[in-house]
């Protein structure tokens, strides 16, 4: 054993050096973590303890042209659960189901939401009732990850009255989230699903805020206030529309519960849509926060098809309302003038080839000018006009009148109107020898291979009501956008309008005249292809405008299986009266075709 003082001092120095060296090394290690990398660890520590709860922003309020509210926000409650693992969430949900009414599908949906965004609180009930909220508040301590937030909820004061154009909002779907357009969306957020809500989603969507809560290692919420400054959600700006809510309510009132069909009312000068309705309508308020299954089934199984927007998606043969298109093509090409008569008088029908083509009025109209043929809606006249124009010219004219296009309204549901662009269509469909010129007879009176939307017919009549330029229908106020549709002189247009006035004054729609206002328009009774007891049901059309000399409103009304066009004319007349604030004339009755 070597314990000479010198040896001991040497070893002592070595030991001290070793001790100081190791402690110095550890000090450097701590300096590196605590000073050099402090930012990184401070952030991780914050991430550990803070959970971000989204604070949904109120969507933009939608107003009508007079500042009345179409879509608003009210206070709602959402129930979420903050969990770290799917198993934990499942256990919490199963316990929750013992306290409140939570269905199996709701639990499954919650778990799916968790899988898509595990870091965010999982929304369990997006729109909880006050009863549910108060029960949960009572049992709050049993559910440490439970979050009850008051969040803005969409509300439509007029419910079903506005749903045909306003649409609804709902939670963004998995399919949507997969699309690049929804890159900025997170699971659980609300998104516009139809109508204006969808079309103007980017405008109506506010900027989501955040609240921070402090959680412990097991994800239990320890502190909700003051963990970190909240980010206040930013509400979206309001959306102003051309809709006249009073008129829209009036329209919905006329339809009531019994009628089915659609209405479009437009300002012919600006293209602003004053009213757009489809009956029967559904209640957008019941769609918010998840559609109750029972309600959804009742809508889906309703034979009147409420989910199908008749004003935007419905494609119907336009019937006699289309005769004005034939007229315009005839006038444009110089084939006829308003005073020209056709060689064959109307005797209740005419023979063409091997077939006999009927006029709606078996009594016959005799020899008629074009003016009178419009007023009386004489089919025989228009058969001959169609033959005179020939299939190619009529088809080309229809294309020029945008009968094969969308009207271009700012709503996502609109469907394109159907009109054969050339005779190729018939060759393709029936084969080169499978069809004859006789198709032109049907097309000329608005039957045959012609399916129009109510909206597109309204648009066509805005051109007749003005200088031959059609206004693009717009729900949200923007700059009017007009397209030249027909090359008619102002005089010719006046003559056409005169004929439409004749429809109401002594013509097929004389029952719908309005005192003090000249109403112009055209009835239509279109074959629906649906038979009851061997009798075909007809769609009742009326498209018109008033006052005739300075039109302020164009209205297109279509009642599905409504029978005669006069029925729609009466409705259109009421709508126009309501808009122009005038009283009707009770006149002699009349029939039409």
């Amino acid at each position, binding site marked *: 054993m070597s314990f000479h003082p010198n040896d001991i001092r040497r070893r*002592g120095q070595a*030991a*001290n050096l070793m001790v100081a060296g190791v402690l110095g090394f550890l000090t450097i290690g701590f300096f590196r973590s605590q000073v050099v*990398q402090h930012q990184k660890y401070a952030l*991780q520590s914050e991430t550990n303890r803070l959970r971000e709860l989204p604070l949904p922003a109120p969507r933009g309020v939608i107003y009508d042209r007079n500042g009345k509210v179409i879509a608003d926000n009210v206070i709602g409650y959402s129930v979420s659960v903050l969990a770290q693992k799917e198993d934990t969430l499942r256990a919490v949900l199963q316990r929750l189901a013992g306290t409140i009414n939570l269905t199996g599908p709701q639990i499954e949906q919650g778990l799916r939401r968790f899988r898509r965004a595990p870091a965010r609180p999982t929304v369990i009930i997006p729109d909880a009732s006050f009863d549910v909220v108060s029960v949960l508040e009572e049992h709050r301590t049993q559910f440490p990850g439970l979050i009850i937030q008051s969040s803005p909820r969409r509300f439509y004061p007029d419910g079903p009255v506005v749903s045909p154009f306003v649409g609804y909002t709902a939670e963004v779907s998995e399919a949507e989230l997969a699309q690049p357009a929804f890159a900025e969306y997170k699971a659980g957020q609300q998104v516009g699903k139809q109508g204006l809500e969808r079309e103007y989603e980017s405008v109506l969507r506010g900027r989501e805020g955040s609240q921070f809560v402090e959680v*412990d290692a097991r994800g239990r919420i320890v502190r909700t206030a003051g963990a970190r400054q909240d980010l206040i959600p930013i509400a979206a700006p309001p959306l102003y529309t051309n809709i006249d809510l009073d008129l829209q309510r009036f329209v919905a009132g006329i339809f009531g519960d019994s009628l089915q069909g659609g209405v479009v009312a437009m300002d012919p000068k600006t293209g602003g849509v004053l009213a757009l309705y489809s009956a029967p309508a559904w209640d957008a308020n019941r769609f918010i926060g998840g559609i109750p299954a029972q309600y959804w089934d009742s809508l889906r199984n309703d034979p009147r098809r409420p989910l199908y927007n008749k004003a935007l998606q419905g494609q119907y043969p336009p019937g006699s309302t289309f005769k004005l298109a034939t007229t315009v093509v005839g006038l444009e090409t110089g084939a006829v003038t308003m005073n020209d008569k056709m060689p064959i008088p109307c005797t209740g029908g005419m023979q063409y080839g091997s077939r006999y083509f009927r006029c709606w009025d078996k009594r016959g109209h005799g020899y008629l000018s074009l003016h009178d043929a419009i007023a009386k809606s004489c089919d025989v006249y228009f058969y001959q006009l169609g033959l005179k124009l020939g299939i190619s010219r009529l088809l080309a004219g229809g294309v020029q009148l945008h009968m094969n296009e969308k009207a271009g309204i700012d709503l996502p549901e609109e469907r394109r109107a159907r009109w054969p662009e050339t005779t190729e269509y018939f060759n393709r469909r029936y084969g080169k020898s499978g069809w004859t010129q006789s198709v032109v007879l049907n097309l000329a009176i608005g039957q045959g291979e012609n399916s129009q939307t109510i909206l597109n017919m309204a648009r066509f009549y805005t051109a007749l009501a003005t200088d031959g330029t059609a206004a693009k229908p717009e729900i949200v106020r923007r700059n009017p956008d007009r397209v030249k549709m027909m090359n008619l002189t102002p005089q010719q247009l006046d003559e056409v309008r005169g004929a439409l006035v004749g429809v109401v004054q002594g013509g097929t729609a004389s029952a719908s005249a309005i005192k003090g206002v000249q109403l112009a328009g055209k009835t239509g009774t279109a074959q629906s292809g649906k038979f009851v007891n061997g009798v075909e049901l007809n769609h009742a059309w009326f498209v018109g405008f008033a006052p005739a000399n300075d039109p302020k409103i164009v209205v297109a009304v279509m009642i599905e299986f409504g029978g005669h066009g006069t029925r729609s004319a009466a409705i259109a007349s009421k709508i126009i009266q309501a808009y122009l604030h005038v009283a009707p004339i009770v006149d002699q009755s009349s029939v039409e075709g």
Partner: protein
Amino acid sequence: MSVRRFPVDWPLVIVALLLSTYGISIVYSAGQTDIHTAVERLWKAQAVWFLLSLAAAFAVTRFSVRLIDWLTWPMYAVTIAMLVLLLFIGKGAGTAASSKSWLAIGGFRIGQPSELAKITVVLALAKVLSAYKEPPRSLLELWKPALVVGIPWALIMKQPDLGTGIVFVGFAFAMLFWAGVSWPLLVLVASPVVSLILAFNTKLWGAWFLLLIALVLWYKPYMYEGIFLVVLNVIFGVVSPIVWEKLAPYQQKRLLVFINPDIDRRLAGYHVIQSQIAIGSGGWFGKGFTQGTQKRLAFLPAQHTDFIFAVVGEELGFVGVTLAFTLFLLLFLRVTKIAERANDSFSSLVAFGLLASWFVHVLVNVGMTLNLMPITGIPLPFFSYGGSFMLASWLAIGILVRISAEGRGGRSGPFAV
């Protein structure tokens, strides 16, 4: 025994008192969590243990070094007996629930005998080493010290308690060094273990093996020893992969996590990562006493025992860490001084052995909180909650006070080196 006045080593006692006070404060803070647990009350128990330990330490200072020397073998025998007994009736606790390190009577845990074994084995090893006339020159001469340390070491590893096992190896090497064993021999003794560790990398092991051959040729041990060592290294280099296969999955995991804590972030690595986050987020001055969020919100595991130093780092920052290191450094330097001035080789070896034991604890525990060392469940002296270890540490202080008093220069020496 007659009460006799003797010079007290106040620098040593004061540093130990400061460390204990610091430690109990941190145990108190460790209990301050947002969701209340039993840890909240443990600082009181720790304070009581501290007072008991002070009394025990005072009692020990009444013992002369001669008496301690004389008591060494009986105490060693009792220690071995207790460790054997533990293998049959030992209980687990806390983070080491599956081991058998606790002595319990009627379900009440009395303490961990291995903490006291750390002292008695130091004493026994010192007694054996001090008996040598000349420092051992060969492996064969080391059989006695190897046996004295090896028996309790094997018993403790059987519990299993890897942390204490490492401490035994640490102070045994330190005491051999202090006894004057030359460093090439120390390297040769350690070589099989190094081979074991390096066996996972063929190139590294190859390099180490060449180095070992060179050392053997230069140091020229007895031929049989040289051959024996080389063969042993080969066996360990080849055997260790097989041993690896034999390890329990959690043991493998601990080693793997040491290499890369991100391997399994949610499980084993989670502890180390949370500890690193706690320390790193403390910054220069910390989040404030009792205010650490990692600790408050239970992200930090074993915050009153194994990871207590992370609480220091999080709440008192780099400043608090440096203060703790300074106190430890002062303690170690003071004990080296005591060892240097000790009256005889036994006292000197005891002093240095106790120092080495503390030092290994500090290095492994603190290194673990920063992922510089593997997780071994080793407590931090004077800080970690635990009665036996507090008692053992203060018994050591008592012994050191006595050695210092009997040594040359006594307390007259300056505080610094």
